């Protein structure tokens, strides 16, 4: 069961003659990724709408199919048959290219994600680097969309998107560095292997089970939220201010492509978070290891997705300058502190006595917490005094 898809693919590839086997293998992987994650996009929109509904004490979609499960099908059909409008003043070529430029890099990023034991399309040595590099490409798509539409809202949104995504790339990368430092490799498959059970022990060695890993996961998720333009960092879209930002002049299937790109990027970055911090396809405890590895991966993906939906249901949006401030004044120093913490942790590995181990944990937890406190006081305190209200009788 665990190796079901790997064996299936091996069998299918074996049907072809030797010279084309590589190409067939790649085509199968690519097809599987696009197919599975497009299906998941549909599922995620349903889950998000249903979940948001429940968070807001509504029912959510419930008209199309059982529990509204076919709602994404109806939405997709609607998007497909809608008129595709290109503004007369728009730069037609760039306008057409922009949605593709948003979707393609996000799909490329899946190539290196290990979605199960031995289930990555390409097992690259510098997989992590590839992932981050490709993820940075979609900014061009947003810029192109905003620029080519020749719409003021679109332009504002595009510039917001660009500034935001470039800023948040720094904390995103720096939140990942401790993992690389501890694991000593950039290959995602090997990072997952390292988070297994080892020789003995019931608990898996997930990165998130260490103090620096837990903090790193939180920081990574914050940066990932901003990187994938999700609420509370959805300034580029900002539908209450700039309507839909770069997408404002898009309609029909091109508009849907932007959403596809957004959700694919969300899954990719959730998958990366799960891979780096939550043990990828590894089970958390040994007695649950019978569950197929890809099952674990997708469960973790859904867990991260649930977190995103929960955040979206709760939080209002930040302002652009505050968003930048958060990235540079708060998240970046926090990731650096976390880097130090991870270094200390690695350096004191194999502590001889229980009190050394306890001290190690205390330092590992205390350092980021103190840093968090100090930074929140320094960055946000002057603006957030407690207020006292008077009453006139």
């Amino acid at each position: 069961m665990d190796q079901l898809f790997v064996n299936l693919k091996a069998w299918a590839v074996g049907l072809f003659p030797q010279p084309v086997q590589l190409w067939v293998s790649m085509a199968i992987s690519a097809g599987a990724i696009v197919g599975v994650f497009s299906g998941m996009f549909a599922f995620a929109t349903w889950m998000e709408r249903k979940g948001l509904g429940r968070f807001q004490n509504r029912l959510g979609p419930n008209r199309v199919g059982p529990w509204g499960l076919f709602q994404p099908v109806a939405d997709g059909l609607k998007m497909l048959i809608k008129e595709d409008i290109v503004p007369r003043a728009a730069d037609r070529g760039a306008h057409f290219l922009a949605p593709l430029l948003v979707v393609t890099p996000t799909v490329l990023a899946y190539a290196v994600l290990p979605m199960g034991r031995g289930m990555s399309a390409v097992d690259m040595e510098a997989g992590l680097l590839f992932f981050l590099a490709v993820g940075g490409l979609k900014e061009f798509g947003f810029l192109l969309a905003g620029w080519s539409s020749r719409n003021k809202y679109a332009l504002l949104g595009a510039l917001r998107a660009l500034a935001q995504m470039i800023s948040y790339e720094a904390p995103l990368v720096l939140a990942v560095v401790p993992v690389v430092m501890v694991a000593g490799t950039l290959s995602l498959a090997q990072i997952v292997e390292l988070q297994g059970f080892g020789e003995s022990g019931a608990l898996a060695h997930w990165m998130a089970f260490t103090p620096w890993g837990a903090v790193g996961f939180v920081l990574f998720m914050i940066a990932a939220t901003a990187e994938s333009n999700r609420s509370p960092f959805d300034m580029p879209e900002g539908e209450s201010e700039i309507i839909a930002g770069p997408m404002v002049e898009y309609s029909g299937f091109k508009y849907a492509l932007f959403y596809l790109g957004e959700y694919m990027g969300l899954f990719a970055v959730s998958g990366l978070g799960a891979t780096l911090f939550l043990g990828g396809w590894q089970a958390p405890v040994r007695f649950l290891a019978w569950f197929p590895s890809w099952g674990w991966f997708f469960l973790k993906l859904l867990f991260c997705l649930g977190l995103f939906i929960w955040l979206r249901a709760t939080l209002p949006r930040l302002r652009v300058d505050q968003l930048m401030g958060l990235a540079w004044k708060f998240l970046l120093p926090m990731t650096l502190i976390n880097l130090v913490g991870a270094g200390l942790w690695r350096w004191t590995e194999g502590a001889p006595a229980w009190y050394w181990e306890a001290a190690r944990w205390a330092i590992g937890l205390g350092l980021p917490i103190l840093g968090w406190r100090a930074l929140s006081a320094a960055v946000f305190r002057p603006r957030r005094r407690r207020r006292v209200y008077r009453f006139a009788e």
Partner: protein
Amino acid sequence: MSGLGNNASGTPGEEKGASSMLGLGILKGLGVTLRNFLGSYRDPERLITVEYPEERLPLPEQSRAFPMLIYDGEDPIGGLRCVACKICEKECPSQCIYIVKDRDARGRPMKRPKIFDLDISTCMGCGICAEVCPFDSIKMDAAYERSAESRFERLLLRKEDLAKPNAYYHKIHPTEAAEADARLGIASPEPEAPPEGAPEKAA
């Protein structure tokens, strides 16, 4: 408690604001939404959605939508209580009622409307016509589903469309209808089944 100027007295104020650590307020908010998420599955107080076409809430007695004309007896047109006094036409704020008095063969005005039209595209359902009618003839209907196939269909209601039996009035506004019957001195129709023998005519 006396008049107050610009000096708000310093009664112990209430402190509002943030905690010392960034993110605690957000966590609190996340707790609230989680409670609502779980609560919407078991607490009917939280999930108040009424899935309208399948389930309908009972309308309160006061409920009003558009006006209707009450008739007594079996004949919707002959039994109309309306005497075409045109008070509702005059008092209607949106001027959506149009009445023409009927005349007999010799041209004398009769106490019944020849035309009674109601333009529900302008009617705002305020109920003033029902309030000012001295003959308890025009009342507010509670039927709110008035969709039609085409855009201009059923926007102008003739007296044939407006005429509703007294029993229907009793069904939707029982208290009000009983009071009206007492004022007019007529027997209230039996609930559910309209009476066989025509009750005496209204004044």
